[in-house]
């Protein structure tokens, strides 16, 4: 198992070194602040959410709550009959407020830093795949479906498992995070090679 993982990582790194993806992420605007500073601050933030809110940082259940609200509007009885919504009925909860506030926090940071983008396509996407919004929409939507299904099956996302779960030394979270990045790297390299 361990050897398999190491082999996969080494071959992907070799592929990355050899392959030409037709675009380089480093040629576009990067981070405003140091990743170590931002990461450490998120670590401290997790102490605060554990202490004051008795909650780990997480985001993906927000979208399931929205799906539940929309489902109840369209087909109330059917939605309420589904096993997931029986144990997790959609309601205005901590996670809903938390993720809604992330949107506002992102806006404040971009606004104060003069980084409001107001764009439908990122320049790197345009340089590599052209200026069709339909293509970006199709790929983005498909990605969202896979991502949310995967997050619900695994029990969390890059925040819930990738940060909050791994920092609690949860075996399942480390397993999930490793699978997320391995599959993510493989799929991204495939996408940037064949499409």
């Amino acid at each position, binding site marked *: 198992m361990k050897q398999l993982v190491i082999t996969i990582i080494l071959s*992907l790194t070799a592929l*990355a070194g050899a392959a030409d993806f037709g675009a380089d*992420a480093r040629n576009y605007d*990067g*981070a405003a*602040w140091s*990743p*170590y500073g931002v990461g450490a*601050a*998120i*670590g401290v*933030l997790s102490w605060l*959410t*554990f*202490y004051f*809110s008795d909650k780990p*940082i997480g985001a993906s259940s927000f*979208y399931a709550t*929205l799906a539940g609200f929309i489902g109840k509007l369209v087909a109330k009885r059917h939605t309420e009959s*589904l096993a*997931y919504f029986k144990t997790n009925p959609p309601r205005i*909860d901590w*996670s809903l*407020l*938390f993720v809604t*506030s*992330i*949107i*506002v*926090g992102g806006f*404040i*940071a971009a606004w104060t*830093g003069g980084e409001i*983008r107001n764009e*439908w396509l990122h320049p790197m996407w345009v340089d590599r795949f052209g200026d069709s919004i339909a293509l970006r929409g199709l*790929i*983005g*939507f498909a990605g*969202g*479906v896979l*991502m*949310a299904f*995967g997050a619900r*099956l*695994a*029990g969390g*996302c890059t925040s819930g*498992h990738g*940060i909050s779960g791994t920092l*609690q*030394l949860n*075996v*399942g979270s480390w397993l999930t995070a490793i*699978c*997320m*990045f391995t*599959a*993510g*790297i493989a799929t*991204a390299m495939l996408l940037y090679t064949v499409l």
Partner: protein
Amino acid sequence: MIAPGTSVKQSSEPSAKPVGGGKIAGAILFGLAFGFLLQKGGVGKYNVLIGQLLLQDYTVVKIMMSAVAVGMVGVFTLHHFAMVNLHLQPTRIGAQVIGGSLFGAGFALIAYCPGTGAAALGQGSWDVIFGIAGLIAGSYLFAEMSAWLKRTVEKWGDKGKLMLPDLLHLPRLPFAFGFAFLLTVFLYFLDRAFPG
């Protein structure tokens, strides 16, 4: 009262009581801070996120590992003194290998993830809207299949709540400090290889 060093609460359990005033203030304040930090860290940007998956830009891994190292030390210290609960998702090998891999494949396509996507929306990267529509649809699709998944995939290799130090029969707090130290060493070498 929380039993020192032992109490573990399952985070997937919905809490019995509705959100109170203090909880609302916390959710909003901490959400604002998290969104602010994600944007400043550059992980609301398409190129930074996809750059990590193409192994061109290591910002995502640097942020995540710094957060994990710092978070681990604090949360385990607070837990040792019975000041916080742990919130562990159960370890389910089948569901997490399949779910994690599907998530990763989706991650490569959308480039944003559920948290960074929200920050991207805030900064005006409108392409994330397609991804958000997909996230909502995918959540509903999961709910459609949830009864069946519970009977099958979620039972494969279900180990319950499982922590690395418990698995290795080592004391939690020293293990957490040692692990955070190793992550820091890893980050040091990562920065040597990919500065910035």
